[in-house]
């Protein structure tokens, strides 16, 4: 069958997402008109997704270096040193649009993709996380989306046997037409056995392993592919279906092969499949590549070169082997019943040359294509500052009533309904399950553990992108710190609207600035990340959502802290300064129906100082429980500790403070800790220049406010645990 060869019209070029200027550059590089296969390759290589053309300029400003960094951005995942010759490998990635179209499969394949990014580097995945944003709970599609996304994440992660130990879930009408599904994987590898997506050595075989290639996910070019099968009445679904069983086999087979020294380079086939994997490997290694598509295992008859190169079928990997090692490698993949095919070899031509059916269907220069990838400095405008909001401008509600409302609101209620659908214990190393500050997995066979978290407060970012960017990093830092672990590095997932709008671009620029400042101040460089733009429907953009995935190390598991109150009659100490900042708080939104004011400012020096102090307390064995303060403020954090420990507390707010602001303000850089006595902690705090306040004592069946109401823990728990299950079981 010969390759379809339509005329390359302006319409076809536009349909491939290339603008006139970009197409002119294509013509210049080639010195001729591309054929359809080549056009398809340019289209995906220069897509926003693969080229980061709108974001690159700003991503470059993020700090990526520190002594613990082994590999920063630019590879499949970031790598950091965790001591004893071991490394943690991690990254986060979005699958937003596919999850909106088909929530189960979209979310499932998102998990599959990020897992491959991590085990591609030679790491065994040890933890999954997920950051989810849905629309208004009252929106008719929300329930269906939540149900499908959660089932899909579980369906995939549970089957491959990687525990899902942490995440976040938010609801906001701005996500009605564009939900966010961000998945993160953390793996562990030997620090001197990391594999890179770099292919060199002319003559080395290029090998395809995993599932067969089908026509999944060939988008961007609907018209072009429709013309290939005029007899098909059915519109081809572009949805990719995941096969976690095959992924599990692929993990085991790849790790088994990587334990030998047969592999030169390896790369998963993610977005843009065979095209980007072969291109990236060759380009990073300064090689050329010759592929023969007749050897690619296919699932369907009559697939064209265009389809094979652009297919996004899941659970596939491309690797370059040392010459003569093919048989050894094949035996491993045979053992695991996976397809294994030699599909080409490296060359020294610097070109990508593709054959199919005896014809040459593509001949592209690799470096010019990679180097000439567009990079834009898009116009941007900064977000105007919100007018100040003081406590006396915000109505004071009864604290008991306010707590009851907040603890059951969609953004603060228990996520048990979500994480009980995830196997969060497989591997038998989960030392902190979901529901605390960070998930924690023991590094297998050792006494140390990784603390992992994902955080972002999009409403803060909308109100002030710089402060919001700082806050996301700071909250991840606090969640890790609260377990006793040392935060080491972050990954990010930048979810924004249309970057061609200066207002949206300004949010991106501001968030990068804030994140960069926080990463520098807190010593947590960015080692990997992902950008998802154009999350916009009609005129509605999502809230700017730079989700931060943080990883920290606890080097001695006997020094771990958890949020639960441990005993009655212990002192509760509040670390950090409380000003009662109500702007952009959940109190303001849930009780007053307002989303205004500036977000709480983030004092990065205080974050660092207080974080270091809290970690020292934990390491010194001074505290019995620890929890950071975030959404909902002090009383919410206190209630969470009380529920986890199944005992109440009696507290005494300072007399001069306005109770609603003091109890529900969202000031940053704060923690609650418990200890048999407050005295030593207060003294140590004073010595360290850290604000500390003896808040009260644990015990009893209720939360008692001095001179105020007593709030039954049982009622708080019922409200907290009740909202999500009852929302999900309601009709419609």
């Amino acid at each position, binding site marked *: 069958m010969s390759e379809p060869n339509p005329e390359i019209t302006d319409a076809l070029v536009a349909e491939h997402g290339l603008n006139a200027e970009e197409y002119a550059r294509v013509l210049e590089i080639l010195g001729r008109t591309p054929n359809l296969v080549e056009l398809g390759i340019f289209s995906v290589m220069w897509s926003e997704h693969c080229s980061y053309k709108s974001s690159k300029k700003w991503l470059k400003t993020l700090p990526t270096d520190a002594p613990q960094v082994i590999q920063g951005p630019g590879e499949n995942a970031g790598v950091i040193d965790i001591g004893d010759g071991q490394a943690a490998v991690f990254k986060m990635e979005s699958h937003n649009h596919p999850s909106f179209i088909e929530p*189960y499969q979209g979310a499932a394949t998102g998990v599959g993709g990020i897992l491959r990014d991590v085990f591609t580097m030679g790491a065994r995945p040890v933890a999954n996380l997920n950051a989810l944003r849905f629309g208004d709970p009252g929106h008719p599609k929300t329930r269906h989306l939540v149900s499908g996304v959660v089932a899909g994440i579980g369906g995939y992660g549970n089957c491959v046997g990687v525990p899902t130990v942490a995440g976040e879930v938010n609801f906001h009408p701005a996500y009605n037409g564009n939900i966010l599904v961000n998945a993160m994987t953390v793996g562990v590898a030997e620090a001197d056995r990391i594999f890179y997506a770099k292919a060199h050595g002319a003559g080395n075989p290029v090998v395809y392993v995993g599932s067969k290639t*089908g026509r999944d996910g060939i988008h961007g070019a609907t018209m072009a592919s429709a013309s290939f099968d005029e007899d098909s009445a*059915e519109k081809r679904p572009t*949805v990719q279906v995941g096969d976690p069983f095959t992924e599990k086999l692929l993990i085991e087979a790849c790790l088994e092969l990587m334990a030998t020294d047969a592999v030169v380079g390896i790369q998963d086939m993610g977005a843009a499949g065979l095209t980007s994997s072969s291109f990236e490997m060759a380009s990073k290694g300064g090689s050329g590549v010759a592929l023969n598509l007749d050897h690619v295992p296919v699932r369907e008859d009559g697939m064209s070169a265009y389809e094979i190169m652009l297919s996004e079928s899941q659970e596939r990997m491309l690797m370059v082997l040392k010459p003569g090692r093919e048989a050894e490698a094949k035996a491993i993949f045979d053992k695991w019943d996976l397809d294994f095919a030699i599909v080409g070899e490296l060359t020294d031509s610097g070109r990508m040359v593709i054959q199919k059916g005896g014809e040459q269907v593509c001949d592209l220069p690799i470096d010019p294509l990679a180097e000439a990838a567009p990079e834009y400095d898009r116009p941007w405008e900064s977000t105007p500052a919100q007018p100040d909001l003081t406590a006396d401008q915000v109505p004071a509600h009864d604290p008991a009533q306010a707590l009851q409302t907040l603890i059951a609101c969609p953004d603060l209620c228990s996520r048990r309904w979500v994480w009980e659908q995830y196997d969060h214990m497989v591997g038998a190393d989960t030392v902190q399950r979901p529901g605390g500050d960070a998930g924690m997995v023991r590094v297998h066979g050792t006494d140390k553990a990784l603390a992992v978290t994902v955080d972002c407060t999009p409403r803060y970012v909308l109100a002030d992108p710089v402060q919001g960017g700082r806050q996301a990093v700071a909250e991840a830092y606090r969640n890790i710190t609260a377990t006793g672990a040392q935060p080491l590095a972050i990954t990010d997932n930048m979810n924004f609207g249309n970057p061609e709008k200066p207002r949206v671009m300004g949010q991106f620029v501001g968030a990068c600035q804030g994140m960069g400042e926080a990463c520098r101040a807190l010593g947590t460089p960015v080692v990997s990340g992902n950008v998802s733009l154009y999350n916009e429907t009609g005129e509605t953009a999502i809230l700017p959502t730079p989700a931060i995935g943080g990883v920290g190390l606890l080097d001695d598991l006997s020094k771990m802290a958890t949020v639960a109150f441990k005993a009655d009659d212990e002192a509760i100490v509040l670390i950090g300064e409380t000003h009662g900042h109500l702007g952009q708080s959940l109190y303001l939104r849930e009780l007053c129906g307002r989303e205004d004011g500036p977000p709480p400012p983030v004092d990065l020096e205080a974050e660092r100082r207080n974080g270091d102090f809290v970690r020292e307390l934990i390491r010194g064995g001074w505290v019995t429980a620890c929890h950071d303060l975030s959404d909902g403020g002090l009383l919410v954090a206190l209630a969470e500790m009380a529920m986890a420990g199944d005992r109440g507390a009696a507290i005494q707010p300072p007399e001069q403070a306005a109770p609603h602001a003091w109890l529900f303000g969202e000031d940053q850089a704060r923690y609650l800790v418990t200890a048999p006595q407050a005295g030593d902690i207060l003294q140590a705090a004073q010595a360290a220049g850290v604000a500390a306040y003896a808040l009260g004592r644990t015990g009893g069946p209720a939360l008692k406010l001095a001179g105020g109401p007593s709030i039954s823990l049982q009622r708080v728990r019922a409200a907290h645990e009740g909202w999500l299950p009852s929302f999900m079981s309601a009709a419609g």
Partner: protein
Amino acid sequence: MKARVHVTLKTGVLDPQGKAIQHALSQLGFDGVEGVRTGKVFELELTDTDQAAARERVQQMCEQLLANTVIENYDIEIG
């Protein structure tokens, strides 16, 4: 009245379950099984008395609940 609904994956959509079953059959020594596609069947017991109306209703059930029309086709038999 009874209705029977078949829900099958659209052509081209990966059917990992079918793939696994095909493999297992060949391991059990059943040769010549060239493909396996899996699907679901729902048998509904309806109080309807009118065939055409019942079909109409079942079609709505398929669209709204029984099938995921993004990746699945359905087929209705009445009676």
